[in-house]
């Protein structure tokens, strides 16, 4: 009987197509939009991702997110090192700097200054060169995306040439030599990222009294991060977060201070409502159209349970087809955007949630239709 149900469904090509397209559209938007949202959100804390997981990030208490640089005095580093439970602590500078290009224009870059001795927090994925090369004079490491695009040089024939090892870049009127190329996660503002040592970063940027942005802390093996963070707050007045806390704080800042969540949420909600309404109405209309046939089956002795199963199978198959089309469409979409600058992060939970929502739509629609079929008097088949 289930095969009969499927033939009834696919035999009505117009309505079947409308249901599948509506559910496919819903699945596509409900999968693609959150993936784009999470892709953008992941970029907000890409700096944390690339820096690696030190035990604690210490910063000014007023810092709201990872790009919100509120410099501290260098003496704070020593204060943190003196807190009980801290194994070691190193300074990190993070700020913005202007690189002068060959054609005389300027490009804003993110400048990261690493601890001169340990180089902790440096890029883990080096495409060319080595992190230790930063110990050479005037040396910098540039991320390969920035080197290939925004910092690329123009050849004599006008073609762009990626910045390479040995090239010299002018940073705030200071000469810097590229000694390595790193591969980093794309940043929220898509600016090139330049790594150098902390001391050199201080030399590159305009003179300020405070330049220490973060203190990266390693705890002693037996130390509790929450307890040590509280000690640091109490002893220095600084804020201390572990990797997850800082990431969460960053994401929360963007969600609260931009309309991004409302924007994406609205489009997802609208897609769900519109797709569900169209698919639900069409499926219900399909059932009404076939009510006479269900009446025939009922008259011939098909029980309510059998008919309910038929309707449920029809709804689930239509839902599965639409879901497959939608998520398949997202897979094709992601295939084309991989490697581009498009923000896209398809977490495994997204298709799962989309599938559950589509399942919900199908089950609710099927229940409405089943109610109609169960209440159907089989005598309806004798009406001319």
């Amino acid at each position, binding site marked *: 009987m289930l095969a*009969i149900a499927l033939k009834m469904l696919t035999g009505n090509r117009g309505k079947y197509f409308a249901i599948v397209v509506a559910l496919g559209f819903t699945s596509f938007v409900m999968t693609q939009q959150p993936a784009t949202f999470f892709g953008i959100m992941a970029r907000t804390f890409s700096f944390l991702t690339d820096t690696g997981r030190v035990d604690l990030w210490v910063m000014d208490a007023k810092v709201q997110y990872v790009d919100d640089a509120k410099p501290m005095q260098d003496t704070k580093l020593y204060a943190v090192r003196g807190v009980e439970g801290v194994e070691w602590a190193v300074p990190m500078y993070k700020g913005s700097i202007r690189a002068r290009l060959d054609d005389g224009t300027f490009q804003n870059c993110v400048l990261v200054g690493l601890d001169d001795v340990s180089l902790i927090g440096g890029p883990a994925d080096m495409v060319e060169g080595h992190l230790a090369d930063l110990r050479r004079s005037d040396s910098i490491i540039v991320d390969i995306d920035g080197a290939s695009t925004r910092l690329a040089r123009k050849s004599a024939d006008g073609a762009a040439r990626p910045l390479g090892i040995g090239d010299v870049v002018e940073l705030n009127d200071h000469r810097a030599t590229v000694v390595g190329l790193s591969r980093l996660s794309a940043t929220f503002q898509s600016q090139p990222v330049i790594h150098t040592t902390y001391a050199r970063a201080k030399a590159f940027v305009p003179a300020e009294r405070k330049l220490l942005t973060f203190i990266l802390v390693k705890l002693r093996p037996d130390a509790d991060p929450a307890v040590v963070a509280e000690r640091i707050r109490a002893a220095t007045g600084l804020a201390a977060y572990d990797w997850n806390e800082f990431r969460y704080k960053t994401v929360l800042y963007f969600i609260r201070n931009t309309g991004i969540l409302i924007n994406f949420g609205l489009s997802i909600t609208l897609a769900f409502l519109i797709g569900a309404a169209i698919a639900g109405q069409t499926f219900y209309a399909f059932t009404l159209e076939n009510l006479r046939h269900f009446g025939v089956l009922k008259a011939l*002795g098909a*029980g309510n349970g059998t008919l309910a199963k038929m309707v449920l199978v029809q709804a689930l198959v239509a839902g599965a087809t639409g879901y497959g089309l939608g998520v398949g469409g997202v897979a094709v979409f992601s295939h084309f955007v991989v490697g581009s600058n498009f923000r896209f992060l398809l977490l495994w939970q997204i298709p799962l949630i989309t599938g559950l929502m589509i399942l919900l739509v199908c089950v609710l629609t099927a229940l409405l239709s089943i109610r109609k079929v169960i209440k159907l008097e*089989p*005598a309806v*088949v004798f009406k001319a």
Partner: protein
Amino acid sequence: MSAATVLPVAGEIGGENLAVRLRGITRSFGRGESKVLALRGIDLDVRQGELMMLVGPSGCGKTTLISVIAAILDADAGDCRVLGHDLMAMRQSAKTTFRRGHIGFVFQSYNLLPSLTATENVAVPLLIRGHGRMAALTAARRVLGEVGLAGRRGGAARPAFRRPAAARRHRPGLGRRSGANRLRRADQRIGS
């Protein structure tokens, strides 16, 4: 049913057992002033093997009566026994089981499922009874051969039903009533 006439047609009557026994069957539709009494105290006996025809003007209650006999419509009152089963005492689920096992239908307007082939349409009652798909289709092909549609039992049968060839269209409908049914009911022109 007041205007309907019950015409027993002479034929082979097998034994004295009654296939249908109705006493004082009433059935109304609607409420209040719009209430219509379709069946008013119908008494009817149909013996096993008897061919019975109901004749009457449109709206006199023929369809209502055979719907009650076929257990797809509940009578308001009276005694209705079909093949020894008391339909008035049956729950809906029991009536469904009863129809599945004992009643064959040839509908007035064919009521073929347009998405299915002729073979599948004929196989539907067997599938409802729980027969395997292959067994049901095999039996359906045999039945289609009996009604002269052996060559049109596959997928090509379906477009034929969309054409207004009623004479051809009713044959799968005839085939659909299972040979195992002890009571067959046909409505309007198919009955002829």
